[in-house]
């Protein structure tokens, strides 16, 4: 392991802002996409089951 301490790790040799913003935004985008899809799926499934209740 090349990092002496946590603060050294977070500093990323002075490039912490760029590195963490890159990885942070990527993680955020992925989590957001998954959450949005779960919502969309929930809505689609709810409509599906409620319509079946009407049809049968």
């Amino acid at each position, binding site marked *: 392991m090349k990092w002496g301490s946590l603060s050294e790790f977070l500093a990323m040799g002075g490039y912490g802002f760029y590195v963490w913003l890159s990885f942070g935004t990527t993680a955020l985008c992925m989590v957001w996409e998954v959450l949005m899809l*779960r919502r969309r*799926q929930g809505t689609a499934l709810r409509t599906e089951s409620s319509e079946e209740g009407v049809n049968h």
Partner: protein
Amino acid sequence: MSESRVTWSKYSAPQALYPLAGKLIPWCAGASILFMVAGLYLGFFVAPTDFQQGDAYRIIFVHVPAAWMSMFLYVVMALWAGLGLGLKARPSFMMAQAIAPTGAMFTFLALLTGALWGKPTWGAWWVWDARLTSELILLFLYLGVMLLHASIDDLRRADRASALFALVGVVNVPIIYFSVRWWNTLHQGASVSMTAAPKMAATMLTAMLLMTVGFWMYSIAVILVRLRCVMLERSRQTRSSQSAFEQGVKEVRP
């Protein structure tokens, strides 16, 4: 979520694809997490600091996989679009429709992480060089495909128009890929190529490839989830228009 609640048999939707996608999703999601954790560990704790760029280079572990996915997903989307046009197959159009948002997201991320890497190493967030400009065009192409599909009410026409748009736009992908060779760009050349030995340390390369596989698995998982959403939404749309039609028939002939 239960498969039995969805009754495909009554409607002409693809019966086999929906449960198959459902079976694949958890495996791809699990694999994606494993590969990304391994890639991040290797990238942050094992890979050495770059002698030229310091630790700023670590952005590569997210920038290059995102950029690769942005191009790769466009090609796959265009293939499905072309297949849909050629075979008049609705599932192919649904695949293309499911891929576009994830491709657009990775294009955005490639541009953003590129800017965040460019600032400390080039001294500029953005330059109008061939690589960056063609990647920006890729983002517009993705958005164009999505907007075109959303703006046409008739589903069949929306499918065909956006597929044609996607297919024409695919010429941009080789332009992005070869831009660093064809033009004098500020963007560095390929670190990894099919013909030459990689110009980077083995641990860096391994971390980057692990992240790429992770992004790949992630993409398959979310695209399949979106595909299932699209299938459900479309089957409902056809049913509601069908019942509206039947209603209309009843009203005309009571």
